[in-house]
């Protein structure tokens, strides 16, 4: 079986001492920032991206991925224990998880979150192993029109499913596309939007934009809010599930995994949407919906499995098509590019050890999270006592070193300062920045594919609807737009994104 030989290859890569170490650092740092509110995986990965220069590509990706799913995990710990979602995806976990903790059932709540995440992670590892190769094979046949339509679909989904107003999110995508244009045009050699600044002829650095918009502006915003964090730690005992609790949680874990996997492969959706949808479903199918909100274990098991499944399945479109499915995934592709590997469907065939090593490491990382973190919960909670006034200067220091070390360019630091201000403006005006980042990454690829497609078709735009796969993507894009613009759904979407 090819599947098994692939997985064996993956595990042989992931189980090397070096990669185990990087996996451990990744999930450790991930849990750390997941526990700490005010810093998310996006900013962390952006800051640490330059560090991965000196590390082999597989190890770099393994570590960055570990940060990503580790953060989902850490976020749930604080949600349950102190009613404080470390990450947005853990907002839903607060509802029933914190109630459970207050009833003295913090142990089972933490255990079910960990076990649910692990089961979801295991299933998704298999899903990726099963569906990755055929998808990549299909993608290898894609021409310029297919790629253009696919990216269009990705950007539109990213925008309509983002938090806040749909048109504003779409406009932010366009802003991102425009930012992506900055630099030298590959076809004509002409430098565009560079304002005569030499550094800009190479384009805006990815790290610069991400750190400026997601790290610096977040701190500004956090310092503006009056936040009094009260840490009250309920005693955690009995970190295990009874048979009854396990039976209660099994269905929600499975359904949550399904929901998460579904939203995971959809480009543009964040884990918050997956976990919220899972919560709604569990409440619907439950025979005793009145228990929800009062410490129902299903309300923790489902969403926690869903957000982990979502986080892992985001790697499917990212690795097989080379299309980042979320802003964090865009950073992963950025890490690949830094290493000199062009993202795309060819990665899986040309660098199988990279693809399968990463997949296997995710399973190992999930196992590490369960084994290492349940006993370490006390440590994580005590971390919450670190006041923000000591935390944010550290984030600033790491951010600046991160930016400077990419190209040893001070100009990029000044640019990041500018993006920090812009990012804060967007935050205040509630213009979602994540779709902008996707637009920024996909911008140059989209322009290139648009040009190529129209060159092949001799300038006839019908090429996008004459080719069946491309037509499929276009129809899907239009459908998504129509459905989301329909008043009833629009209202419902606002409720969901507001809550999430």
């Amino acid at each position, binding site marked *: 079986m090819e599947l098994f030989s692939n997985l064996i290859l993956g595990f042989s890569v992931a189980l090397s001492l070096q990669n185990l170490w990087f996996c451990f650092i990744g999930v450790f740092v991930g849990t750390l920032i997941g526990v700490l509110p005010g810093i998310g995986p996006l900013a962390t990965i952006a800051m640490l991206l330059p560090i991965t220069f000196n590390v082999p590509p597989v190890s770099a990706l393994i570590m960055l991925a570990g940060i990503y799913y580790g953060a989902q995990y850490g976020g749930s710990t604080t949600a349950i224990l102190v009613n404080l979602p470390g990450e947005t995806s853990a907002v839903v976990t607060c509802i029933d998880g914190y109630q459970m903790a207050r009833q003295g059932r913090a142990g089972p709540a933490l255990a079910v979150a960990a076990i649910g995440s692990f089961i979801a992670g295991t299933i998704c590892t298999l899903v990726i192993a099963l569906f990755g190769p055929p998808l990549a094979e299909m993608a290898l046949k894609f021409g310029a029109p297919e790629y253009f339509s696919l990216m269009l679909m990705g950007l539109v989904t990213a925008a309509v499913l983002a938090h806040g107003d749909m*048109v504003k999110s779409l406009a932010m995508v366009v802003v991102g596309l*425009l930012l992506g244009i900055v630099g030298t045009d590959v076809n004509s050699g002409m430098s*565009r939007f560079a304002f005569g600044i030499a550094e800009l002829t190479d384009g805006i650095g990815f790290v610069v934009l991400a750190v400026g918009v997601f790290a610096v502006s977040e701190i500004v915003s956090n310092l503006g*809010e009056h936040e009094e964090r009260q840490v009250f730690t309920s005693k955690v005992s009995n970190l295990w599930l009874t048979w009854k609790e396990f039976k209660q949680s099994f269905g929600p874990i499975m359904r949550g995994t399904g929901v998460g996997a579904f939203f995971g492969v959809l480009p543009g959706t964040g884990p918050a949407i997956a976990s919220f949808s899972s919560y709604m479903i569990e409440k619907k199918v439950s025979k005793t919906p009145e228990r929800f909100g009062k410490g129902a274990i299903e309300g923790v098991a489902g969403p926690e499995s869903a957000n982990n499944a979502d986080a892992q399945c985001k790697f499917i479109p990212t690795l097989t098509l080379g299309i980042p499915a979320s802003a964090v995934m865009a950073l992963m592709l950025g890490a690949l590019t830094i290493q000199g590997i062009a993202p795309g469907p060819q990665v899986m065939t040309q660098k199988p050890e990279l693809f399968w090593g990463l997949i296997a490491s995710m399973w190992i990382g999930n196992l590490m999270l369960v084994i290492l973190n349940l006993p370490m919960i006390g440590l994580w909670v005590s971390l919450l006592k670190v006041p923000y006034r000591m935390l*944010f*200067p550290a984030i600033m220091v790491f951010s600046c070193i991160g930016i400077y070390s990419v190209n040893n360019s*001070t100009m990029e630091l000044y640019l990041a*300062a500018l993006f920090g*201000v812009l990012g804060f403006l967007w935050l205040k005006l*509630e213009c979602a920045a994540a779709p902008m980042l996707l637009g920024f990454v996909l911008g140059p690829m989209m322009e290139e594919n648009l040009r190529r497609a129209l060159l092949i078709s001799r300038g006839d735009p019908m090429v996008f609807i004459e080719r069946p796969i491309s037509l499929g993507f276009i129809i899907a894009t239009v459908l998504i737009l129509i459905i989301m613009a329909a008043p009833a759904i629009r209202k419902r979407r606002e409720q969901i994104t507001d809550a999430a």
Partner: protein
Amino acid sequence: MKVELRENRDFLSGLMFIVIGLGAIFIARDYPVGSALRMGPGYFPVALGGILFLMGIYVMVQGLIKKEKVKGNWSLRALVILPLAVIVFGLMVERTGFVPALIVLALLSATAGREFKFVEMLILAIALTAACVALFIYGLGMPYPLFGGH
């Protein structure tokens, strides 16, 4: 309820999109547009600028109808100090070396917070700098001089 234009969230968002869109078209006005068959470097930017302009008008009108206010405060202090700290770090790092630049960066950033205790922050700045030197210079071998310019 009367909402001033300068605190009307979507009016301002729309205005921003219009400015960016028109700005893009203005800057790209001299880039050859070419034709659909052979797109010049100006084609994509001008098209995007146009789309953004139209979206901006829509968002602006929505703002005039919905009249949503900007939430929270503008935290001007942090908004000025933090980008400034990044810029100061940029100015210092190649002139004074890694260590002084980092200490100033940490201290200056810290003043953006609501409470600033100098001694505590000085200790924090020194500890952070030491950690960064250990991690980045010795650990990862980044080639920056600790003191002095290059």
